[in-house]
């Protein structure tokens, strides 16, 4: 709303009321009104309590807000601290799980077992603990070299493949009849 225009309207409305015609009647009425002068200030409610109340509300509001904010900040710091701690602990737990898993590595277990003189059983045999019966053919384990448990070989440094040995065919070897493979089809010799 544009205020200058309303100002003008107000002034225009007030102007006709000024001329003298109205004044005598107003004076007469005023005179009547003047007689009983009641003490305006005496009856009013005391100011102090209100001021105090407002001040208390305002101050306690500010203080409360301050405290709230502080506690929020405090909580945020605590939360951060706890989060850090949780992260630390979960990192630690993960680290331990990792270490455990590394200890369970079959290669590691095999190497340690072999160093400790343990040997893999050469046969599968079972003892029925109820009847004392042996199932299968047990054989004593013989200690050998730890060849099988040798660690993962280093990345290949490929030596030139040795010349193909003449294909000896000892008994116990079944070699399919000699054939040449030509143009995708077998061509028998």
């Amino acid at each position: 709303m544009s205020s200058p225009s309303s100002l003008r309207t107000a002034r225009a409305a007030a102007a006709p009321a000024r001329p003298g015609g109205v004044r005598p009647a107003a004076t007469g009425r005023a005179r009547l009104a003047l007689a009983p002068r009641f003490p305006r200030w005496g009856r009013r409610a005391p100011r102090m309590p209100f001021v105090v109340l407002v001040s208390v509300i305002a101050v306690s509001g500010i203080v409360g807000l301050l405290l709230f904010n502080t506690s929020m900040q405090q909580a945020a710091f605590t939360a951060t601290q706890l989060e850090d701690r949780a992260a630390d602990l979960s990192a630690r737990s993960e680290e331990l799980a990792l270490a455990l898993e590394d200890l369970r590595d079959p290669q590691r277990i095999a190497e340690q077992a072999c160093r400790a003189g343990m040997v893999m059983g050469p046969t599968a045999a079972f003892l029925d603990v109820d009847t004392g019966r042996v199932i299968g053919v047990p054989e004593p384990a013989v200690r050998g070299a730890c060849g099988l448990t040798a660690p993962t070989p280093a990345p290949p440094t490929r030596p030139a493949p040795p010349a193909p040995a003449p294909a000896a065919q000892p008994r116990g070897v079944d070699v399919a009849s000699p054939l040449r493979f030509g143009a995708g089809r077998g061509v028998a010799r």
Partner: protein
Amino acid sequence: MHLRLQVGFLVVALVLSVFTARLVQLQGLDPRQYARLAAAEGKVSVVLPATRGAILDRFGRPFARSTDGLMIAANPQLSAQDAPALATLLSRRLDLDYFETLERLRDPDTQFQYIARQVPAARARAVVADAVERGLKGLELRNDPVRDYPAHDIGCNLVGFMGTGKHGVPKARAGLERAFDRQLAGTDGEARYQTGASGRRIPLGDNTVTPAVDGTDLVTTLDRDLQWYTQRVLRQTVLGARGDSGYAVVLDTRTGETLALADYPTYDCADPQDYPESSYTSRALADVYEPGSVEKVLTASSLIDAGLVTDRTRFVVPPVLMRQDAPIHDYFDHDTLRLTLAGIIAVSSNIGTVMAADEFAPGQLRDYLQRFGLGQRTGVGLGGESAGILPSDAQWTSQVGDRIAFGQSLSVTALQMAAAVNTIANGGMRIDPSIVQGSATTDEGRTVGSDEAGLRRVVSEDAALQTMRMMERVVDPEDGVAPGARVAGYRVAGKTGTAQRVGPDGTYDGSFTVSFGGFAPADDPRFTIYVVVQNPRNGGGGGSVAGPAFSRLMTYALSRYGVPPTGAAPSRLPVEW
């Protein structure tokens, strides 16, 4: 009184006019720039990396797992001034490219730039602490898990590994890591929050967090300890025979679950860069070769199923069999032999097998082999799997058919062949082999796993039983060719294979593929094991090279899973008449 009112209104009017003007300026002239400025003021956006799912064995032990690591990031607004010194430090300590790092440290358009991802936590902290000590500002640490392969080379050919893609972002490079990347990866989240002048988060500031969705673990059917043993035995076998390469497959007969699948040579997925790229795939799934005589058990069981022969059918096996274009020989010189079908299998006679296969109607053997799963991918869920080669009907001339009957002129993968042999073990029902336990969806959208394994009858239970009895004669110390494959105390059924190998030029180059496939206990099979060695140079064949490896693996598997011998007497099927 009126004057005061008028002045008051005037002041209000003036103030409102100023506000209006400012409003028009802000909203009308360039609203977006101001919104951007306001949003950027003290706001930080952080990627919350999703933790990648682990790849586990059947007992929950990890082949691959993700552990705490950190990413080093830079705020170029702060780091730009010391960029050269920082770039020198970072490139030296973290093996980064100097110029690329420098560019990132100077990027004027952002407050956040990756410098290095997946750095082990201790190393990342040390580098950043070092930078702070030298008074170099602008680096920060963020959570970023590291991929770890605690079992090193165990199972790597299947598991694969995570390499590094663009901008140091990890990228699945091979194996299950790649095939199931989407499932394992999860979805990164994001946190946006406001910071004060100190860089600390404002507790009641504007905060939005989209939490990361962690990846889902992939459980395999593999048994990590058995896988270790299989890989070590295979390595010893290949090196002992001075072979080029080898594969070994251990299947659970009843479920088709792959308990172990070993390749040699292999690599260490924790340090893949040290090994040639050719070693990353699983050769047991990718390499195709001619299976040789192990295939005879498929021919024999098909013949029996078709009702054309029995395990006791008698054959007169001449020293040489003259066929259309060429003579067929056996690997050993012999006079005319009087062998039963069991005898033909026990001594692995090519001539006898071809004579028996003559009973087939045209196309019949091909149908059987197809139902055994040859010529088709097993679909275990890994990429790079080969289908093998089963000649089409048009290519199936009578000469080709003769050779296919004893395992030449067709190509298989090791897993395919293991699954085919397992069909005999499983009473004639072929079960799809699986590597994923339960069910999982590959990135290509195929659902695979042990829950999805299809089951189909290939040969009758009786045909499977007769074939099993014939296969038992193979490991017989007197009548068979592979006594080395026996397992003390158990009934074992198996078959040797010594096939001629096709060289790079497409012709037989004089080298061999030796193999042994079988199962135990023969009368109640629990495991099917298939061992292959390519190009052994010690003159050994399927029985002497792969047979003992089969025996060791079978012994270990039986004792590990507590499978007692059945106690029944082995078959005494006559081999001669």
